[in-house]
């Protein structure tokens, strides 16, 4: 009896810091749970995290190994175009989607015709000066990266699920998360890769 008591005490002592973290985390989850409500299409379940979202939710990035595991998982979600055609889009349509940041908020009526919000984070066209800088510049994407099969496939994959290539990327999973349709992503492919698009033509 006594022995068990001592072992128990040791276990409690050594996990003291951990237990405090756990208690705080439990309190945090309770706080999140009572602080949000469903409004319009923004349902309360949006506050519950996917596993990778949880791993990517601290000041420190997960270990290289953990990131690799997330990427391998996310890679499996990518659906390449059913008809095998990446180049059937129209860059003019693509530009509209890249510029539009609408959709999915609790003030948006329906979850369709969402924008990609690409300009919130990326420079793209040579002509558009109102661009954000959270992501790298994509100006001249087609000129620099070319329209070889590898880059075409990578570009599609990155738009579909950015986390497949950088586990905790700030970029949304446009395809996997149902933000954009396959057709919209094809238009964006044209915007990035068509030589006539202002992304590639000065």
């Amino acid at each position, binding site marked *: 009896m006594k022995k068990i008591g001592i072992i128990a005490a040791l276990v409690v002592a050594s996990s003291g810091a951990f237990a405090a973290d756990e208690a705080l985390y439990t309190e945090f989850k309770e706080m999140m749970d009572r602080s*949000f409500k469903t409004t319009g299409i923004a*349902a309360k379940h949006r506050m519950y*995290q996917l596993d990778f*979202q949880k791993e990517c939710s601290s*000041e420190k990035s997960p270990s290289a190994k953990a990131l690799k595991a997330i990427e391998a998982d996310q890679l499996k979600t990518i659906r390449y175009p059913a008809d095998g055609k990446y180049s059937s889009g129209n860059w003019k349509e693509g530009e509209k989607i890249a510029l539009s940041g609408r959709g999915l908020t609790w003030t948006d009526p329906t979850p369709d015709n969402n924008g990609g919000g690409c300009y919130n984070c990326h420079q793209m066209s040579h002509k558009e000066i*109102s661009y954000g800088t*959270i992501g790298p510049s994509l100006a001249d994407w087609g000129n620099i990266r070319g329209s070889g099969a590898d880059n075409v496939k990578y570009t599609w994959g990155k738009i579909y699920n950015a986390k497949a290539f950088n586990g905790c990327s700030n970029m949304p999973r446009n395809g996997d998360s149902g933000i954009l349709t396959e057709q919209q992503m094809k238009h964006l492919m044209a915007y990035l890769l068509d030589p006539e698009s202002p992304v590639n033509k000065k």
Partner: protein
Amino acid sequence: MRQGNKYLTLATLLAMAGGMGSTAALADKSTDEIAKYRQMIADGNPSELSAAQGEELWKTKRGPKNASLEQCDLGLGAGIVKGASAQLPRFFKDTGKVQDLETRLMTCMETLQGIDPKTVVNEKWLKGERDTMASLVAYIVTESNGEKINIDMKPAEMKKMYELGKMAFYYRSGPMDFACSTCHADTNKRIRLQDLPDLRSQKGAAAGWGSWPAYRVSSGQFWTMQHRLNDCYRQQRTAEPIYGSDVTIALSVYMASTANGGTVLTPGLKR
């Protein structure tokens, strides 16, 4: 009164805020409006109107108890408004809670005037008691303009709120996988042409936290901090934070205490 500035178009604002001339087409259309805008701020920050209404409301007997708010304790003692919001949020012994300006005002409205907090919490922005709240806030924060941000982090309750706020800051969820940190955890970043303060740093937090509540020229409205946070969560595509909920207080403690030592410039003037 507050709607008087609706003629300011987004084009004007882009041109103004960017200071980059945007495009020729935009600049052309908006020269007129920029002139009007300059004229408008020459007479002062438009939230002076809200502040004046708020001061009036502070002194007005209202609610089932027909009392004014003049005995309200915002942390510096009953009735002291000057400098009070520069030291909020803080831990209040009487409620046993950490409160920001708006939740503290709800307490005063309830205890002094008998006004049910639900009339604020369940209201829409800029309507009814929420509108009253905005005016009161405009008055109170004007009285802290130029003061030092001075958040008392000694109480254990504040330390815990800070930790919870930090966790909320990095919490990714929803269809876009965004957290506050997606947009506010790096230096010199922007969304379209809007600069994003790095809220992890003292400088960034002082600039971001310290210039709210603010008058938003784009909507011609005075916005409280609760309103600002609500709109950031909207852009983040999460569910909606409940007015005055603990997550909003925790985030406020995280930002305000990080900003400690900075200068309050409220009400701010934003695009």
